[in-house]
């Protein structure tokens, strides 16, 4: 297509704007990375000397180690439970008619708009009232409720896109419902289930506000441990941890994009 000077200029301005916005997105990541490798304890730019000692300190710091372990425990339980609960409910939502369907769906999706501090406070009070100790159970249950909307949506969309004639074909060939579910529906839903689980796991591992309310010293997750650290210390070991965090998440995202097609998961593929 022939382009006029005006159009070229417009394209240039557009590209510049996008670059600036990308810069805004990347800036804190870049700065935190520089700070993490800075040898000095006080933040200063540009750094005079480089070192890895903040990484060593972050890895050795007991609260971070505990937080990482606790976070992993909570994440694995919460995302797995949420996947099972959410997938089964999404199936019922797509295929069945039952009482209070709309109501249950509405309530389960409501954590998308209810502020996390409200959910956290609610579970804190509830746990105190029914006499639960502030152990893992409360944290996991709270996380399940918080990530459930994402799992339900992800699985529901996959179910919608699943041609029902596969299941009818299996039934016509003599497979009873449970067998249809295990040999046809489940394998065909697998990509949706994996992306739903991954989504849930990442969100749960990063959940902070509600966790701050429902965790105790013994169960505090990594974001809570990091928050407490930032409030008390100013040395760059937090920056070092952030870098590890960013790299870990980015690797997961690149993986998800390569194997599952993030564009499809997020529903942003150009329609033609």
């Amino acid at each position, binding site marked *: 297509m022939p382009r006029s000077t005006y159009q070229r200029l417009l394209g240039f301005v557009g590209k510049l704007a996008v670059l600036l916005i990308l810069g805004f997105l990347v800036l804190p990541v870049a700065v935190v990375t520089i700070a993490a490798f800075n040898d000095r304890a006080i933040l200063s730019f540009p750094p005079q000397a480089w070192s890895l000692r903040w990484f060593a300190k972050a890895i050795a710091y007991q609260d971070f180690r505990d937080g990482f372990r606790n976070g992993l425990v909570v994440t694995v339980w919460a995302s797995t439970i949420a996947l099972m609960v959410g997938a089964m409910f999404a199936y019922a939502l797509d295929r069945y008619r039952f009482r209070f369907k709309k109501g249950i769906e509405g309530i389960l999706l409501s954590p998308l708009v209810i502020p996390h501090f409200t959910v956290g406070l609610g579970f804190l009070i509830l746990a105190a009232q029914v006499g639960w100790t502030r152990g893992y159970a409360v944290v996991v249950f709270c996380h399940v409720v918080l990530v459930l909307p994402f799992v339900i949506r992800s699985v529901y969309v996959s179910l919608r896109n699943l041609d029902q004639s596969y299941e009818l074909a299996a039934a016509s060939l003599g497979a009873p419902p449970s067998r249809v579910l295990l040999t046809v529906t489940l394998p065909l839903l697998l990509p949706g289930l994996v992306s739903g689980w991954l989504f849930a796991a990442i969100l749960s591992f990063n959940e902070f506000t509600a966790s701050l309310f429902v965790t105790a010293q013994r169960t505090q997750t990594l974001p809570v441990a*990091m928050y407490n650290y930032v409030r008390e210390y100013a040395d760059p070991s937090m920056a070092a941890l952030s870098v590890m965090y960013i790299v870990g998440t980015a690797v997961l995202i690149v993986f998800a994009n390569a194997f599952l097609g993030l564009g499809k998961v997020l529903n*942003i593929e150009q329609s033609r």
Partner: protein
Amino acid sequence: MNAQPFLRPFTAPAVLCTVGLVAAMAAVLQFSLRAYVPGSLEPGGFTLANFSDLLKPLYAKVFLDTVWICFLTAICTLFVGYPLAFALVRTQNAILKSILLVIVVTPLFLGEVVRTYSWIIVLGNNGFINSVLMNLGIVRQPIQFMFTTFGVVVALVHVTMPVMVVMLAAGLSHIDRDYQKAAESLGAGPVRTFLTITLPLSMPGVVAGVTTAFAWTFSAFATPQLIGGGKVNMISNLVYQLGFASFNFPFAASLCVAGLALTIVVLTVLRLAARPLDDLKAH
């Protein structure tokens, strides 16, 4: 013949979660109607005093500030996010597109604490921006970003941007490119095509993005807490302080209830305002 063979086993766990969530929300509601007994974790009798206390100027201001910050953040995020979403959807180069996508999406999964901490390093008095400006001799005294509404909003825009871009991109990607080609064939220039075709057709995505950005910002805690540092307060900070510093859980609960009511009102207004756009979603 049973047409719904797995109904019970498949819905029972979800019903359990529903009951749990409803119970938690009911607990908040119940606490918001109870009296605060200083020095005790157990609340007193039923009262409406918590809600009348909300009207005190100190708390009313926090409410207004919260709405203002959410509004500001949503609008700024929209203006910054739109070009990026546009680039993301229209880029033809697959590798470039993947890179854009990863850059946009990674912060979405980074969590509030890491991102807020990063912004402290960027905006602090000894932080990146002030160091660079002073080293270049542009300013003598560090500019105060921390503990200001500006600083909080900048960080919040960064926090909210990925979800805004994803929502806008979803809206933009479902616009048929032929509309744009048709407009161009009729002699409309690129700016005019954008303003008369693409922008109106992307309005459903814009509304979804603004709505979500508003709700997310409302829920933010670490950012106003760490960057606002007590000078810029949102409802979330007040709830935490009341709960964990003064153990006044009944009042914290009433703040949550009022905050939730406010969220619902704002989201409903946004949705009603967007109703004329509903027929754009049809295709």
